[in-house]
């Protein structure tokens, strides 16, 4: 699905990612953990194509296709989805209208007809139910005045609508209480399939109790310093990150 090799990237003069190697196959869930400032969110943004980051060397491939030079929307059309840590408020554009635009633009790019309005509405309702989203919520302006939990739930709702091949969830657990976390995680679990892959970026083990990863990677100073199975996350919970940091400095 996703193959990242020796990825070096940064912003202006400073390098943030120092040679990342990561391979994610269809049907897998990978967790990327690490202390603040280790480059977790940068990695997510670079995969999604944020223009302010510059890739200086290395390669990213999605389903065998090179991502280099592709705009964020082109990557989205290929099946990349990034759930934001801080979703942006767009007053005056309802959740429904935004999803209609996003989905139809994606269909257009894939050479498909626009989805008929009634079909779209049906799909929206179906996915809203999956995430236990109230219908009233769908006619509110996108993210405007949403609570932290509503914003994150809305991100996963959008993920459900877009049906991505590769979903990257950036700190989806931050700012959520335990009930909201459970609903969001259950939503994500319902979207797991053998045909897609999910990268969960998180600081804490907590989310991984609900979204159980196949692999866990620890990012430190822009490098993956340790990879393992879900037990690694528990170990990190116990020991913190310091023991890994020391290892890298030695």
């Amino acid at each position: 699905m996703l193959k990242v090799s020796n990825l070096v990237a940064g912003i202006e003069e400073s390098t943030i990612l120092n040679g990342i190697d990561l391979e994610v196959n269809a049907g897998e869930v990978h967790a990327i953990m690490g202390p603040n400032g280790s480059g977790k969110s940068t990695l997510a943004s670079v995969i999604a194509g944020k223009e302010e980051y510059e890739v200086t060397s290395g390669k990213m491939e999605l389903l065998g296709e090179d991502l280099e030079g592709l705009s964020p929307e082109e990557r989205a059309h290929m099946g990349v989805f990034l759930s934001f840590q801080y979703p942006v408020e767009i007053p005056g554009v309802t959740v429904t209208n935004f999803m209609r635009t996003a989905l139809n633009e994606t269909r257009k790019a894939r050479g498909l007809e626009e989805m008929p309005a009634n079909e779209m509405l049906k799909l929206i309702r179906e996915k809203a139910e999956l995430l236990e989203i109230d219908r009233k919520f769908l006619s509110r302006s996108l993210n405007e005045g949403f609570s932290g939990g509503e914003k994150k739930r809305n991100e996963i709702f959008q993920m459900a609508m877009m049906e991505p091949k590769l979903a990257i969830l950036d700190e989806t657990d931050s700012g959520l209480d335990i009930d909201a976390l459970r609903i969001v995680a259950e939503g994500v679990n319902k979207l797991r399939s053998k045909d897609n892959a999910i990268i969960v970026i998180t600081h804490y083990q907590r989310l991984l109790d609900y979204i159980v990863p196949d692999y866990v990677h620890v990012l430190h100073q822009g490098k993956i310093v340790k990879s393992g199975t879900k037990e690694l996350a528990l170990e990190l919970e116990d020991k913190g990150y310091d023991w890994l940091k020391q290892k890298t400095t030695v």
Partner: protein
Amino acid sequence: MDLKEKIVSSFLAFEDSVDLDSSVHELRSEAIKKFEDHGFPTKKEEAWKYTSLNALQKVDFSLFPKEGALDYKEVKSYFLHEIDSYKIVFIDGVYSSYLSETTHEGMDICLMSAALTKPTYKAVIDNYFNKAVKDDSMTHLNTAFSKEGAYIYIPKGKAPHKPIQIMHFSTGSEAAQMLQPRNLIVLEEGAEAQIIERHQNLTKNEVFTNVVTEIFVAERANLDYYKVQNDRDNASLVDNTYIDQKSNSVASVHTFSFGGKLVRNNLNFYQDGSRIDSVLKGITLLGEKQHVDHYTLVHHAQPNCESHQDYKGIYADHSTGVFNGKIIVDQIAQKTNAFQQNNNILISDKATVNTKPQLEIFADDVRCSHGCTIGQLDEDALFYLQSRGVPKKEATALLMYAFANNVLESVRLDALKNRINGIIADKLGVELGFDV
């Protein structure tokens, strides 16, 4: 001969063409003297620091153009034709009865030329004509040549059950032309009206419009006024609007500035009563070398009143914008709430905007807030939308909508709201496929 000389020397011929016995004859004579003394405003005046009328004065404008002819289907698209409305339509400054739909049933929605000459209207003209204006050179110029325009009189407690559209078309039947429409709108106690005003050039010949609109909003009356400015790049407009409000009245003016070569909006509110609400809103979306200057004044002259100003500007290419918002709170006007907001986005390095709040507060128990911002498009927001598959151009357009949205929210005519959305989408070169 420059434009001022041409104007002044043509005044006698103009006076000959109108009724010398008219009660406004004296007003016209005084006004031309004042204009002659002062001339066109220059950039040396603080109020005109950012807008120059010099280039316009070099154009050989025809002052009394011949009327052109138009078919409704040629101009239908400029009307809000989806809904029923009264229409007061002028072609090259001359009333077009063919395109208009006026009324005298229970109210007068008709012509200034009739109001200025027929005895039935004399009392209203004597009471209101030229009573709200300020000592202003462009206004004097208009007064001197005041002859035609819209005349709207809504008696106590009445409301036309449909909006009123005031349309001015230029067909450039001669060469470049100068137009000076004069509108008078009177809402008596508890009356209501929704009015849309638009000036539209249809040809390649240059147009310079200097319009004056006086509006009187009596006790408990309610006025919504919409100015749609989306003219060609050879059309310039100086709009002088004066609104005089009495107690418990609400008046709102929305100004949508999307086009034209040079536009200057002098919007003046005078609050002559208590518990008045004045609303001034605007969306400015410019490109190329367009220039729009919003010069607003809200004068709080009595206690317990409110004013709300919210202007949003988006500037592309080499366009320039100005917002000067003046608020005067007299010493007697305690408990005034005056809000002013002007936010701008520059989407080109070459675009400029000058924004300036001007507060003159003489009362001590007031709430006045003002804020202005000039910024760029939020890159994070753009990335967010793009990451959901929305192409950059459409994503940019969505963010513009979001930015200007709260100004559109207060538009109470859905057909107009949709039209404005359509114009915005068109300007941004996108199709969004839904009404925002």
